[in-house]
């Protein structure tokens, strides 16, 4: 669809979607959200761009191929399992590390965050692949 309004609006909407996606990812552990939802939001922003400019344009201007999202996501999930493996706790047991930052106070970082980020990336890739494949021109 080649309308100026949509094109300009999509720029801001997409930015907002990405921001929401990251927020959903980060707050997921305590409030509704998480990697899956974040990934879908980010995927939606890509779909929106495709809707505005056409999938062919999008494919041409993709700097990262969707496969790489999936691969890096899965690799990240595997990485998140390494600390538990080294500590010889059960497979994929969450490991948490508390960091005290000067301003923000206590911050808890754990392997589940890495895991969730892996899910986030993988879901983005999967969404884009669905999108691209379904709209493949005969």
């Amino acid at each position: 669809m080649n309308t100026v309004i949509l094109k300009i609006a999509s720029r801001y909407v997409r930015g907002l979607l990405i921001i929401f996606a990251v927020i959903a990812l980060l707050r997921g552990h305590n409030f509704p959200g998480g990697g899956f939802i974040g990934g879908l939001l980010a995927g939606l922003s890509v779909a929106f761009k495709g809707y505005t400019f056409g999938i062919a344009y999008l494919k041409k201007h993709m700097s990262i191929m969707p496969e790489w999202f999936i691969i890096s996501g899965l690799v990240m999930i595997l990485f998140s399992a390494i600390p538990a493996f080294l500590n010889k706790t059960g497979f994929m047991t969450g490991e948490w590390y508390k960091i005290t930052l000067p301003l923000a106070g206590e911050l808890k970082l754990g392997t589940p965050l890495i895991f969730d980020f892996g899910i986030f990336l993988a879901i983005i890739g999967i969404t884009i692949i669905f999108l691209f494949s379904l709209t493949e021109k005969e």
Partner: protein
Amino acid sequence: MSKILLLYLIFSVLIFFLPKKLAGYKAIVLMLLQVAVFIYFISLALNTPSGSTVIEEIPWIPGLGLNLVFVADGLSGAFALLITGIGALVFLFAHQYMKKYENTGGFYLQLNLFSGAMLGLVLSGNLVQMFIFWELTTVFSFFLIAFFHEKEESRKAAFQSLFVTGFGGLSLLTGIILLGTVTDSYAVNDWITHADEIRNSQLYLPGLVLIFLGVFTKSAQFPFHFWLPGAMQAPAPVSAYLHSATMVKAGVFLLIRLTPALGGTPEWTYIISLTGVLTMLTGAWFAVTKTDIKSILAYTTISALGILVLLTGINTMLSLKAALVFLFVHAFYKASLFMIAGLIEKKTGTREIENLGGLVRYMPLTFIFATLALFSMAGLPPMLGFLGKELIYEAKVQSPGIASLVLILGVTANILMVTVSLLFLYKVFLGKYKNRGAIPNEKGFLLLSGPAVLGMLSLIIGLFPEFFAKSVIEPALNIIRDEKIVVKLELWHGFNKVFFLSLVTVLSGAGLFLLIIKQEKVITFWRKINTRLFAVNFSDVFTNFLNNFIEFSKQGTKSIQHGYHRYYILTIVLFASALLTLQLMVTSEWKIQAPLSFRPFYISGVVIITALATIFSIISPTRILTIISMGVAGYGIALVYLYYSAPDLAITQILVETLTVVMFFLILQRLPRFAKLSPIRTKIRDAVVSLFFGGIMTMLALKAIKINFSNPVSDYFVENSLSKGYGRNIVNVILVDFRALDTLGEVTVLTVAAFGVFLLLRKKSEP
């Protein structure tokens, strides 16, 4: 000992990183490994008191009570010496023999890995572990037979051996598991201590038969013998190593190893003896009429394997002693003869004995070593083969129950062996040189080193057998009965029944040989008998069976995998409904007890709108309306989720719904014109099926509310979400922490689905 096996792995990789000057000496490097391991086992034997056992145990799968057990006792030690000793000679031979071929790197890799696997097999003290090595030898045998994979016969032979021995391997595993359930252990030692328990259990006979299937396929016993002649497509070193000296003996090894645990029953004795006798006779009978050198050797190998199996079946101390001695006898002469066969083929370009002859003039040394080996095969003094044969006769004479039958057939087989040996010697080395190709020579002393060493060993041990008997055979026999056993081997036994039998054998064999060379008709007549009476070609029977089986599977697949998406979905839905109905019938009384409430009114409204949207999506006149109404239904469900305080679920539902609608709109223009094509009958069928499925799912949902687990898992999650998972959003903590593995599985499934969609919908023009 586990480190030795590791060494084999390391060396297999190492040979590819040799410095350039050494790159042509891969086989020599691997030979040095074999020699080193050989020396290791000798030193192990010298440093431990005779008859004792060295055991190394490594925890493997503790949950199943499985440990990796490596046992070096008399039996496995003897086999290890055989494997590494002959292995060294074979690598030495291969270094020269394989020079003209390409891809020798891979060949040596496989040969070396085979050697390691074979060593692992004989050292295994745990039957599951042994099975793994057993299958590894099968796999490497497959690759090695298919060395000339550009030839169709090679591929066919390789597949045949893989199928036959692979099938046997699977039966073996089943048998091991069956009998393992009796003792609750897979360690050989546990089986031996619980021997009576196993023998008296109901599973004994089925387990035994399954294990025998494994043994008989591996050791090429009748009627599975046919893969071994086919395996002669492999290069000579492989035939010398795998298909005569080591791998085919694995079955015999297993029989001896399991004798203390399973042996001694009538079933054991009769099944094994009968198979052994039949194989022994079949092999010898067909060997006489073959004209291809390697074929002759293959059939005599089958015969020898039959003898070995028969001897383990007779199951007296004497017969087991004879088996162990004959094992070495056969390994020595057969490995040597296969190397000589390779040598002759290399130098003359043919393996047909009809085209050979008179080689003694050009290859005198080869002739000498071949004579040594063939004399051993014929069982003539003073070779080790003579000792072996005497022992076999002695064992047969004293075998309980079936002595007369075994003896008569055994003597017949040996007479044929004598004839074959003499025919081989005569047709290849004596007479006129018929091949008009190149003049053969004996250049390349490495090719002759193997036959030389093995021939001399046969001769020396035959003349002075005391040391061999004491240091190799005695400890090996120790594992069967835990007492000091004195083994005496002598060339001269005095004038007794056994000597008389030997005399008869040699004279009849020589007589038959003379008859055959004087009267060409004899062999033609013999062949005629074979084609008329024994017209069954087992190899063809097997191939036909396999082809029919494949055809059957194809037809079956075709009828199930018809390629119509709608019928696939129909099948899945119907099957799922049937299963669920069954389960609901079994477990539930059909009274719905859930209190159906319609308050608050707005949720009732949402549900009604959702239902209406669903109905509208079916009857809507255009596609856009269908998509929109499906979206409405989806959002309605999301609202219900939200009301029942599942915000994560609701968000996900909304996002997925949005994405679906967006994607639908993107491909809307590509779809063909909207039309209603289905006839009314199809529509009714679909309606019935979907209503039925929907009804079942509703029942299931209602039922699910009522199920009360005594201790719901969700309580655990609620309690520990914050304290252990450091998160207040329980759903998310479950997803990324408590049940992270499940999530990983789901993401993997999604990934596979994504690639599936990608592959299904990619451009048709790409191949």
